[in-house]
C-alpha cells in the first residue's frame, strides 16, 4: 500500500463556500492508501506548504494529493513542495476542485460529491504513479536561424552576441528580407536601408555567424538540445571563393528584362544577379529558370566577362548536415495572392499596385530612384487612392487584421506629399488602428499636416476609364457614395505567412493556426516558444508585426535560445513513451503514427530455446518523444506505455470514480 496524504485547499472562500471541506476531508481519510488528510485555507501559501512538508515527514508519506485549483495553475508549486518533503514530484497529483468544480457548480451537495470523486480518482492515480526523474540530455551549443529578414538577423546577432555560434539560413541570394526593400519607416521616417544595412554587415562580419544564403532547410531530425538539420545549398553557379562581387557578369548578361522578385516586378534584373546593390553577401547567383545558357546551351556571356573565372555552370545543389541545439524560425510573410481578389483589378489595371511596390518606387535605391510613377505611362500621379484592408478583416478572405497597413498607408500618404507636392492622397479605411509608440500622432499628422483625405468605408468597385482608375466606395461617415478618379491605386494587401511555411512547419514539427501562421506555445505567456521544445519564433511567421515588434521578438527568441544553450544538460518532462522489446511484434504502427519520429525500427537479439534470434522491434528515443501518447493508444500489442500517463494510472482514475458509482448502483 502506498502512503498518501490528502491536502484540501479552501482557496479562501473560492472553494470552501461551495465544497464542504470537512466532508471531503473525512471521505478522503477513509480512502485506501490514505494515511492522512487535512484542509487549510490557502494550501499554496507558505504555512500551507509547510503543513504538507511537516505532514509528509510525520506520516512518512510517499504520495501526495492536493485538492485545490487547476494543475495548470499550481502543479509546479506543489511538485516543488513534494520534492522538499522528500517525495518524488511525479507522485504528487492535483485534484481540480476549483476551476472544474466550485466555480461552476452552486449546489453544495453536488459540488462536494464531485470534489470527493476528484480526490478518490487522484488518490487511486497516485497509488499507481511511478517515481520519475526528469530526463537529462546534453546540449549542442549552436543555434540555427531560418530566415534572414530583420527578425532573423536580430535573433542571429543577439545569439552570437551571447557567444554562441549561429547558422543563418536564407533562401534568397541576400539577407535583409522585406525590410531591405522598404523606403522610409513609420513613424519616424528614418530610412529603412540606413538602419538595416549596418546590421546586415554586422551579421556577415561576425565570426560566430555563418551565413547560408540561397539555402533552404530540407530536413530536421532530433529534438531540443540536439537537432540534426539538413541544409540544401542551392547551386549559385558562381564560385563564392573566387567571386569578388565586381558586377562585370551581370552587366554583360544580355537578358535584362526579367521582373525582379526583390522589386516586386517594379524593376527588372538580369539572369545572373544580386537582388539589390547593398546585398549581403554581394555575390550573384544565376537563376537557372531564366538563364538562356541553361535553356539553349549557348551564351556564357557572364563566364567570358568574369576575369576571376568564378562562373561555374557545372555546380549542383549540395546538402550539408549541421547539428544545433535550438532553432529560431523567422520566415516572415508574403502578400495575399491577388488572383483571389478580382474586384481590386490588380494585374488587370497596371496603375493598381501593392504597398510593397509603392515602397520600391519611393525607395531612393529602387528601380525608379525614388520617383513615384504611374506604371502605365511613367508620369507622376496627382491623385492616389490607398485602399486599407485589402483581403484583411474580410470574412471572404482573411478575418484577421494585418496590423501594419494603417501605418504604412499613412506613411505612403506622407511620402507622396513629400515627393509630389501637389498630389492628393485618398485613403479608404475601415478603422485606423494606430496602437504603437508615436503611431497615433503620425497618422494624425498625415491627416492634418499632409492633407491626406481619409474616407471611412470599403471600396466597392475599381475600373479604368479614360486613362484614370475610377475607385468607387462609400463614405460611411457622410453616408454618401464617393467616386475618385485616381492616377494610381495602392492596395494594402493582407499579410500571409511566407510561401513554403506549411512545408517548413511540417519539417520542424510545429503547428500552424487556421491562417497558416506558426503557433506559439501559449498566446500570452509563451509567445516566442513553440509547442515543440527548442524551436522558437520571431517576426511575421507567427503573426503580422511591424519592425520594432519583429526586432523585439527576434531578441526575445535569441534570449530563449541563449537560456537553453547556457546549460550543459537540459531536462525534459519524463512523461515519455517506453516500448517493451520483448512484446513488440514489429508492426511499425508506432513508427507510422508518431509525428516526431521518436519510435524507430531497431533490432534485438534474444535467446530462444538456446538459439540466438534477432527480431525487428521498435525502439523509442526518449529525447525525441514529446509525450503525446499516440503510439501508446495505437500499439495493438499493448507493448508501449507512457510514463506519468500510464494505462494503469488512467484505469486507476476510472476505477477510483466508478467504484463509488457501482457501489451506489448496487445499493439501489
Amino acid at each position, binding site marked *: 500500500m502506498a502512503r498518501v496524504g490528502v491536502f484540501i485547499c479552501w482557496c479562501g472562500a473560492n472553494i470552501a463556500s461551495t465544497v464542504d471541506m470537512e466532508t471531503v476531508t473525512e471521505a478522503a481519510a477513509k480512502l485506501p492508501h490514505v494515511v492522512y488528510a487535512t484542509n487549510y485555507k490557502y494550501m499554496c501559501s507558505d504555512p500551507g506548504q509547510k503543513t504538507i512538508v511537516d505532514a509528509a515527514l510525520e506520516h512518512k508519506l510517499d504520495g501526495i494529493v492536493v485538492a485545490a485549483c487547476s494543475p495548470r495553475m499550481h502543479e509546479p508549486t506543489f511538485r516543488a513542495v513534494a520534492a522538499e518533503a522528500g517525495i518524488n514530484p511525479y507522485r504528487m497529483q492535483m485534484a481540480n476542485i476549483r476551476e472544474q468544480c466550485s466555480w461552476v457548480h452552486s449546489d453544495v451537495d453536488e*459540488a462536494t460529491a464531485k470534489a470527493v470523486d476528484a480526490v478518490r480518482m487522484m488518490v487511486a492515480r497516485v497509488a499507481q504513479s511511478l517515481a520519475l526523474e526528469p530526463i537529462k540530455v546534453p546540449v549542442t551549443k549552436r543555434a540555427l536561424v531560418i530566415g534572414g529578414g530583420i527578425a532573423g538577423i536580430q535573433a542571429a546577432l543577439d545569439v552570437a552576441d551571447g557567444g554562441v555560434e549561429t547558422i543563418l539560413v536564407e533562401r534568397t541570394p541576400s539577407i535583409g528580407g522585406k525590410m531591405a526593400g522598404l523606403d522610409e519607416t513609420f513613424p519616424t521616417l528614418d530610412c529603412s536601408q540606413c538602419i538595416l544595412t549596418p546590421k546586415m554587415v554586422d551579421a556577415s562580419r561576425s565570426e560566430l555567424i555563418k551565413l547560408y544564403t540561397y539555402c533552404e532547410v530540407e530536413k530536421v531530425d532530433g529534438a531540443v538540445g540536439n537537432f540534426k538539420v539538413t541544409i540544401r545549398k542551392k547551386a549559385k553557379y558562381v564560385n563564392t571563393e573566387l567571386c569578388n562581387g565586381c558586377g562585370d557578369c551581370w552587366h554583360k548578361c544580355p537578358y535584362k528584362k526579367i521582373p525582379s522578385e526583390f522589386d516586386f516586378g517594379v524593376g527588372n534584373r538580369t539572369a545572373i544577379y544580386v537582388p539589390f546593390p547593398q546585398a549581403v553577401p554581394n555575390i550573384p547567383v544565376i537563376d537557372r529558370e531564366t538563364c538562356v545558357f541553361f535553356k539553349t546551351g549557348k551564351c556564357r556571356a557572364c563566364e567570358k566577362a568574369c576575369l576571376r573565372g568564378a562562373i561555374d555552370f557545372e555546380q549542383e545543389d549540395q546538402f550539408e548536415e549541421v547539428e544545433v541545439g535550438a532553432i529560431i524560425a523567422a520566415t516572415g510573410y508574403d502578400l495575399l495572392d491577388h488572383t483571389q481578389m478580382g474586384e481590386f483589378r490588380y494585374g488587370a489595371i497596371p496603375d493598381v499596385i501593392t504597398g510593397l511596390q509603392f515602397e520600391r518606387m519611393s525607395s531612393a535605391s529602387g528601380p525608379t530612384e525614388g520617383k513615384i510613377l504611374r506604371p502605365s505611362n511613367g508620369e507622376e500621379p496627382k491623385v492616389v487612392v490607398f485602399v486599407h484592408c485589402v483581403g484583411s478583416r474580410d470574412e471572404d478572405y482573411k478575418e484577421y487584421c494585418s496590423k501594419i497597413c494603417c501605418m504604412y498607408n499613412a506613411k505612403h500618404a506622407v511620402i507622396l506629399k513629400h515627393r509630389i507636392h501637389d498630389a492628393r492622397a485618398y485613403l479608404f479605411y475601415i478603422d485606423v488602428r494606430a496602437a504603437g509608440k508615436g503611431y497615433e500622432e503620425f497618422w494624425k499628422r498625415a491627416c492634418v499636416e499632409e492633407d491626406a483625405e481619409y474616407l471611412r468605408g470599403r471600396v466597392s468597385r475599381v475600373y479604368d476609364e479614360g486613362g484614370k482608375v475610377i475607385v468607387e466606395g462609400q463614405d460611411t461617415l457622410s453616408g454618401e457614395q464617393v467616386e475618385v478618379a485616381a492616377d494610381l491605386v495602392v492596395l494594402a494587401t493582407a499579410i500571409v505567412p511566407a510561401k513554403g511555411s506549411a512545408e517548413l512547419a511540417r519539417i520542424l514539427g510545429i503547428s500552424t*493556426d487556421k491562417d497558416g501562421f506558426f503557433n506559439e506555445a501559449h498566446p500570452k505567456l509563451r509567445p516566442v516558444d513553440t509547442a515543440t521544445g527548442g524551436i522558437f519564433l520571431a517576426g511575421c511567421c507567427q503573426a503580422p508585426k511591424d519592425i520594432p515588434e519583429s526586432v523585439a521578438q527576434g531578441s526575445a527568441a535569441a534570449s530563449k535560445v541563449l537560456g537553453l544553450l547556457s546549460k550543459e544538460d537540459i531536462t525534459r518532462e519524463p512523461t515519455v513513451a517506453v516500448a517493451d522489446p520483448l512484446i513488440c511484434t514489429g508492426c511499425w504502427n508506432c513508427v507510422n503514427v508518431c509525428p516526431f519520429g521518436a519510435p524507430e525500427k531497431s533490432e534485438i537479439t534474444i535467446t530462444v530455446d538456446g538459439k540466438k534470434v534477432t527480431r525487428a522491434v521498435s525502439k523509442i528515443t526518449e529525447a525525441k518523444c514529446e509525450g503525446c501518447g499516440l503510439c501508446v493508444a*495505437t500499439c495493438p500489442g499493448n507493448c508501449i506505455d507512457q510514463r506519468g500517463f500510464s494505462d494503469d494510472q*488512467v484505469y486507476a482514475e476510472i476505477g477510483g470514480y466508478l467504484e463509488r*458509482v457501482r457501489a451506489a448502483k448496487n445499493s439501489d
Partner: protein
Amino acid sequence: MTKAEKQKEPEKAPQWEPNIVGFLCNWCSYAGADLAGTSRIPYPCDVRIIRVPCSGRVDPLMILRAFREGADGVLVSGCHPGDCHYIEGNYYARRKFIALKQLLDHVGIDPRRFRVSWVSASEGRKWANVVEAVTRDLLEVGPFRYEEDGDD
C-alpha cells in the same frame, strides 16, 4: 454568483443523474474547462474529468473499460482538427472513435452514450454547452447497466 445565474442552472433530475467519464486533452479542452471555471459559466455536475496529454492518448479500451465499470456515458474532448498540440493526434483519435461508435452499436451499447467534442482552450462557453448536451442526451437514454443492456 448572482441569483439570476443560479436560476439559469438546469434543474436537477429528480431520481437519477448520469455518471459520465470525460477524457480531456491537457492542451485544449482541459484548459477550456478551466476557463469555464474562471469565467464562472455554470454547467451540470455529472462529468468527472480525466486529464490526458492528447485525445490521441485515449485508447478505445479505456472507453470500454469505463462502460464496463459502470459509466452511463463517456466523453472525449480534444483540440479542433488541425489544431493538435502534437500536430495530428486528434486526427488519429477521430478515426478510432468513428470505428468505436460502430462497435458500441454492435455490442449493444447505445452510441449516444459516447460523444467526441472539440473544445479549444479559449472555448469555456463551448465546454459548458458540451456538458449540457451530453447530460441531456444521457437523461434521455437512461442509466446503463452492463449486465442488462451490454451483455444480453
